[in-house]
């Protein structure tokens, strides 16, 4: 995992209906961010330099309902890779073994390999709770088992589409940021147009010599 700094920033939004349950910790009102009415959480990871994989430490446990109280199942820390090319979240065999998970489903997977060949397999699925760095607990997410390059958890689009996810590489430093639930759209084209309008409407200044 690259050297990086993680910041937790409370945010707020109108929550949308999501198939998975997301538990949010309450955000201090004094730190609420713009355009936001309801508490949300987000985190920003700031890598030192450009990175080509987005990795974070997460915790995983067998699925349980936190509202039911103790005892809670064991949870362990793993390196997770964010992957928009994966429709769903995957865990490695190591996670399955260390948490003593038992399959509760099966799924057909299509993996795109060398030469764009699509390989189809059947694999077991497990129900887990996923603890993201931003204090967001995703309860009862169905994950499949596979071999993952660079980590033990692959965070797929099923998690990413719970909120807003962005990556920037300004000044040669990769930052990625995630918030749940989704807050507002990000539109670079709109930002560029607004920037142009703002600057073109300014009165021409006298050049300084």
């Amino acid at each position, binding site marked *: 995992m690259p050297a990086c700094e993680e910041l937790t920033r409370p945010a707020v939004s109108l929550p949308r209906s999501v198939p998975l349950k997301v538990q949010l910790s309450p955000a201090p009102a004094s730190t609420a961010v713009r355009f936001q009415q309801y508490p949300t959480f987000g985190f920003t990871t700031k890598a030192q330099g450009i990175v080509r994989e987005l990795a974070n430490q997460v915790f995983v446990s067998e699925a349980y309902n936190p509202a039911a109280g103790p005892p809670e199942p064991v949870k362990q820390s793993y390196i997770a890779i964010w*992957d928009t090319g994966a429709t769903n979240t*995957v865990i490695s065999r190591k996670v399955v073994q260390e948490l003593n998970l038992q399959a509760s489903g099966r799924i057909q997977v299509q993996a795109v390999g060398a030469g764009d060949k699509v390989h189809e397999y059947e694999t077991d699925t497990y129900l887990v709770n996923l603890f993201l760095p931003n204090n967001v607990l995703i309860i009862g997410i169905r994950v499949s088992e596979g071999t993952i390059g660079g980590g033990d958890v692959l965070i*797929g689009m099923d998690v990413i589409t719970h909120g807003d996810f962005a990556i920037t590489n300004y000044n040669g430093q990769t930052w990625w940021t995630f918030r749940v639930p989704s807050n507002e759209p990000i539109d670079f084209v709109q930002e560029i147009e607004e920037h142009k309008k703002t600057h073109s409407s300014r009165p021409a200044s006298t050049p300084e010599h």
Partner: protein
Amino acid sequence: MLEREFHYYKTHERELVERYPGKFIAIVGEEVVGVFDDELTAYLEMKKKYGLGKFLLQECLPVKNSHVQRYHSRVAFR
């Protein structure tokens, strides 16, 4: 694990989706033993009743290939 249950679902997918649209069903062997609104409730109740690894949970979605996931990188399955 659960190959028999998954095979049963795939071969009866159409009728199960018609009968339990949007629900999570629990299958043991070739029998539907529970119908639930959400997967976590199904998991916790079936875990108590049958023990883990003995039941298959499946969402009955009226979408073609709803039991197929797709990966373009980083992951390999056996």
